């Protein structure tokens, strides 16, 4: 049975989609069968990192939720269709599928207006795990704690919480950790992203974070202009594998893979 890995942050702008895409790619590179679902229906974005644009985009999570297609129809095979850049070309032939949310304004406003059946989303995710025989299903969630995010957390085997080193993120993450514990999420992992290089005592920060949340901090990743510059064009950790950020991200991937 595969594992559902939800990636979440309490506030936006933590680099969540970028981290999710790179994590999924790193795991797929190790010949695991990997799915990535964009449940950030209000503000989708992860598709760009996998080389999918509006023209190429076929069926979406929105179509599935509105009963227009099956969840399998939404799959975009990155290993077959998204290898148009230097980083992504390494994914050729790998078993990595993306399940994108619609980027059409009409679809987004419809779902915001009408809402959707959270249970149907859950059914879809369970179907994917089964039919594609996924080892890992990564869920890119919407920031905050709305209903679909609570669902993603509730069904997770692993919840990876991303936070920046500031007190607003520390506060919001504390509430999310309490929710995860209340929903019996078996594995909680933490990741600090966008740390200004050299500004903090990393050992001290790690000790404080782990002590506060009672969960392992997998890595402290640096804030970096090159990542910001590259983010929407390619998978950074594949394109620049020797970069400090990429090395740190691989330790996060190792932490995910080592969960039994």
């Amino acid at each position, binding site marked *: *049975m595969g594992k559902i890995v939800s990636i979440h942050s309490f506030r936006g702008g933590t680099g969540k989609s970028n981290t999710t895409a790179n994590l999924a790619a790193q795991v797929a590179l190790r010949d695991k069968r990997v799915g990535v679902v964009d449940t950030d229906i209000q503000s989708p974005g992860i598709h760009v990192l996998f080389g999918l644009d509006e023209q190429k985009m076929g069926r979406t999570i929105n179509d599935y939720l509105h009963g227009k297609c099956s969840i399998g129809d939404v799959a975009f095979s990155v290993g077959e269709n998204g290898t148009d850049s230097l980083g992504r070309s390494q994914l050729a032939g790998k078993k990595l599928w993306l399940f994108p949310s619609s980027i059409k304004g009409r679809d987004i406003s419809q779902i915001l207006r009408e809402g959707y059946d*959270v*249970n149907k989303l*859950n059914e879809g995710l*369970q179907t994917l795990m089964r039919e594609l025989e996924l080892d890992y299903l990564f869920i890119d969630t919407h920031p905050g*704690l709305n*209903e679909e995010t*609570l*669902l993603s957390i*509730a*069904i997770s085997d692993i919840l990876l919480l991303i936070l920046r*080193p500031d*007190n607003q993120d*520390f*506060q919001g993450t*504390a*509430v999310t950790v*309490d*929710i995860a514990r*209340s*929903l*019996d999420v*078996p594995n909680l992992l933490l990741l600090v992203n966008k740390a200004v290089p*050299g*500004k*903090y*005592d990393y050992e*001290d*920060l790690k000790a*404080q*974070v782990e002590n*506060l949340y009672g969960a392992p901090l997998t890595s402290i990743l640096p804030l970096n202009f090159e990542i910001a510059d590259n983010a929407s064009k390619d998978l950074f950790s594949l394109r620049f594998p020797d970069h400090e950020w990429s090395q740190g991200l691989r330790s996060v991937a190792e932490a995910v893979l080592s969960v039994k």
Partner: protein
Amino acid sequence: MVNDMTDDTILQLRKTFLFSGLPEDVLSVLSKSIVHRRLSKDEILFRKGDAGDSLFMIGSGWVKIVTEDGLGSQLTLNQCGPGEAVGEMSLFDQAPRSAGVVALSDVTLLELKQDALLKLLDQRPDVALLVIRGISSRLRGSTTYIEKAIEWSKKMAEGDFSFIEQSSSGEFLEHATQEDRAKQFLSEFFKMARNVRAREEKLKQQVEKLTLQIDEARRKQEFEELTSSDFYANLKEQAKKLREQRQDKK
């Protein structure tokens, strides 16, 4: 005994920069004008501002050169030992003593009065030339050190401390004697540059220690708001069932 004393005096004179280049017969004449003096520990030889007309060469023991800082407390500029000289500038100018001298131990001194020197120079113009040559050579050396200090100052101002690493700079850390005031200055300058660089590097490394601050009351309130809905109760129940199902499949 007298001859021994004269020989010893000549030996001392030969060790000073002013007289080291003089021929034996001149040193012998000069030695007759030397007055031997003794100081006990903590005794003051002269104070800053005193009128001065003598040069003192140290035979044995140590003295410290002192001045006062802006608040009136004593500041030691340097320490001098056997063979070194103090007060030599007073031989040629009439200015008062620029610093005081205090004995650090029991000290023997060779005093040469200005009158005695001027009398000798009157009789032996060739000696005057040798003395001037000695002073001139030292000035030339000082100029080299001063130029070095100027170069380093400019580099430091630009944040370039590379001169510290250059191997030739190491020599400036060697002990510089009182005789070599310019070299002594450069040595102090070099130490200062190293300390400034060390402080700058320490500042760069100073990292911010974040203190994680959580408002526990707010945390509790938000948690209760989120978990009090029917949706949440239902979700919790469903999640539990789902986990059990998947556990069974394993």
